[in-house]
């Protein structure tokens, strides 16, 4: 990466702005509405609209599917400053992401850090071109929060591993091409030491999936079954039995993502919805219980955002903010759950609609139900509090 001067950056911003203005279709600048608005790529990729296709292909051509990865892997090779500018300019006019991909957000960082050069060359380009749809296989039916208690086994059969077991909470396993997962490769070692990180082709013989229905209705989650699946040895990432290191690295990533559930910029203020739904007097809400609850929520939302800013700023000065990901995950999801409870209360009868001509109301009620999972998935609130108390506060075991 070459260093770029301030003047270069100004020019880059102008060019980017112009390019986006010219190439991003108008419909791709509208907020995402439902799942059909997402493009996931993959072997069997199909576009929901012509505009979606155009937008993806323009960005692909520009190498901006993953603008900040090195160009040798198909990335755009942008400097952090340039990448920031691109993000800002996309946000400015509301451009959608050209693709949603766990390959970019989850597997990619792990491959960059732990894979061999050969493996990078093999897997990264198909992410940057959207050819492979990756899913993630960590959780198991009986493991729950105790992720390291996983039982899916990979036996060493000289030229391949033989994988048997099952995973749960695998998002889009029924649609994905490949899965990156944790498997047990040593049953005698302490539980954290016998785990490996393996990539498995979902079309392999013996792989099966079953969608999971949630309290909120249909979901992208699946159970995934491995029945004596042969996996080539070169699909092992990192060292044998050292998969937990990679898992921890990725979990920290995931927590930060989930902590940010429900970004404010796309949200209508809760008090606004309250003013539209509830009785007022002199334009002040009259519900004596809800009003302070709304204010408390909004105050904490505002201060939580400042906190993200502050810790980001501190990190720039070299303060290590790594252990704080548990705090972000915990606080962000608890706030979201509180918000959804409040919104449901504020919306009164509409907040309870499940199937009705009032589709918007029904979809919001389902979002409320879905939010009950926020404080569980990606490490429960209890697990996060435990991490804070042990790793940050150094309380004894």
């Amino acid at each position, binding site marked *: 990466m070459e260093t770029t001067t301030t003047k270069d950056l100004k020019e880059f911003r102008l060019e980017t702005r112009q390019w986006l203005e010219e190439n991003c279709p108008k419909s791709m600048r509208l907020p995402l509405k439902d799942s059909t608005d997402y493009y996931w790529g993959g072997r069997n990729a199909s576009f929901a609209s012509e505009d979606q296709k155009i937008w993806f292909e323009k960005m692909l051509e520009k190498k901006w599917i993953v603008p900040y990865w090195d160009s040798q892997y198909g990335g755009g090779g942008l400097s952090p400053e340039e990448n920031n500018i691109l993000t800002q300019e996309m946000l400015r006019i509301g451009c959608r992401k050209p693709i949603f991909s766990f390959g970019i957000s989850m597997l990619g960082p792990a491959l960059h850090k732990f894979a061999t050069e050969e493996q990078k060359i093999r897997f990264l380009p198909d992410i940057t071109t959207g050819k492979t749809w990756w899913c993630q296989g960590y959780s198991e039916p009986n493991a729950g929060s*105790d992720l390291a*208690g996983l039982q899916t086994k990979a036996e060493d059969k000289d030229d391949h591993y033989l994988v048997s077991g099952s995973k749960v909470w695998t998002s889009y396993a029924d649609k994905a091409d490949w899965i990156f997962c944790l498997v047990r490769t040593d049953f005698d070692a302490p539980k954290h030491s016998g785990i490996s990180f393996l990539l498995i082709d979902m079309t392999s013989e013996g792989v099966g999936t079953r969608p*999971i229905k949630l309290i909120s209705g249909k979901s992208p989650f699946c159970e995934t079954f491995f029945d004596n699946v042969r996996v080539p040895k070169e699909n092992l990432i990192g060292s044998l039995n050292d998969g937990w290191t990679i898992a921890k690295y990725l979990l920290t990533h995931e927590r930060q993502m989930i902590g940010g559930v429900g970004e404010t910029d796309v949200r209508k203020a809760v008090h606004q919805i309250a003013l539209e739904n509830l009785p007022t007097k002199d334009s002040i809400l009259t519900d004596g219980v809800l009003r302070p609850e709304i204010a408390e929520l909004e105050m904490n939302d505002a201060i939580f955002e400042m906190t993200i800013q502050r810790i980001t700023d501190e990190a720039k000065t070299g303060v290590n903010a790594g252990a704080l990901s548990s705090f972000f995950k915990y606080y962000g999801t608890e706030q979201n759950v509180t918000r959804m*409870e409040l919104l449901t209360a504020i919306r009164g009868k509409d907040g*309870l609609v499940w199937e009705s001509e009032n589709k918007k109301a029904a979809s919001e009620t389902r979002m409320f139900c879905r939010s*009950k999972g926020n404080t569980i*998935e990606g490490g429960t609130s209890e697990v996060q509090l435990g991490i804070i108390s042990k790793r940050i506060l150094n309380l004894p075991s």
Partner: protein
Amino acid sequence: MALIITEEQKLLKDSAAEFLAMNAPVEQFRDLRDSNYKPFNENLWKQIVDMGWTSLTISEEFDGLDFGFVGLGQVLEEMGKTLTKAPLFSSIVLGATALSNSSNQKLKETWLPMLMDGSKRIAFAQDEHNYFDPTAIVTSAKKSSDGFLISGKKTMIIDGAGADTFVVVARTDEGEPALFMVNSSAKGVSLTSEILLDAGTYASVTFDNVEVTANDRISDVGNGTVLLNQILNTASICLASEMLGIVKEAFSQTVEYLKEREQFGKRIGSYQALQHRAAIMFSEIELCKSIVITALQALDNGADNLDELASLAKAKLGKTIKLVTNEAMQMHGGIGVTDDVNIGFYFKRARVLQRLFGDYNFHLDRYARYHKY
């Protein structure tokens, strides 16, 4: 009066529990939902009528059992535990209560026997807004030559779709809220349905100049507000009984899960943070039991402070059912948010019960106003 149920009431409770376990377990709830949200099982409703549950609170004058609300409360609590669906609340707790407290003898004689034998069903049409406010009635009852013309739009009517008749709250020309019987097949009545979070069907009904006779008026002149208040109290206390069943059952399933589920090599019930949260729930539930029995007894005794006790019951159960179902979801972890297990049903039903006839906030406010602050 001791805050315990009598031997007779206990017998009724036990028989209800046994009957429901056999004939209406939670699986029935799931089946009904998966059968395109069928409102209830007709055969079960016949059995319920045969068990006499529809007659428990009806006066002997009309061949009811006059057994009282403490008894009915026990049945509702057990139905809460099994999430049993039946038009007992709509037709008896709401419909029959409206009639029983009326002085319109003709209506009573006509309807109460049919409600008890299950041949007819009533639904109560009061709500007009997204939020609950029994004073915010716009629906009008305009005097006509030989009766009234009812116009307005009602919503969130429990079991409204299959009802033979509605008890409609409407404002008279004098501005007083009054209650009228309105045949569901009358001209000018149009109905739409929504499925709510609890997989229950709730109706919205438009009344467009619907004609009713003078004899269809349930409430006496000057007495509409009092009658409405009576229904609100009765409904709140009966809902609190059902909520108590849900609270107890969700808690008991959660405690069982804490004893079984292992994480990090230990049963999760051995983790102190969860233990303390379970003990806090236990304490709140002890309070719930006390207010429900107190309020049910007060209903039977026609206590002076029924307004106070009804709001106490609905508020306390509203607050606790939210706590307990939320904790139940969290403590069940990932499995709890799937549709495969039942705990989510209790959470969803709880949210609807919380709102019906006033949520925590509504009743807290009503309680404070009762005490003049």
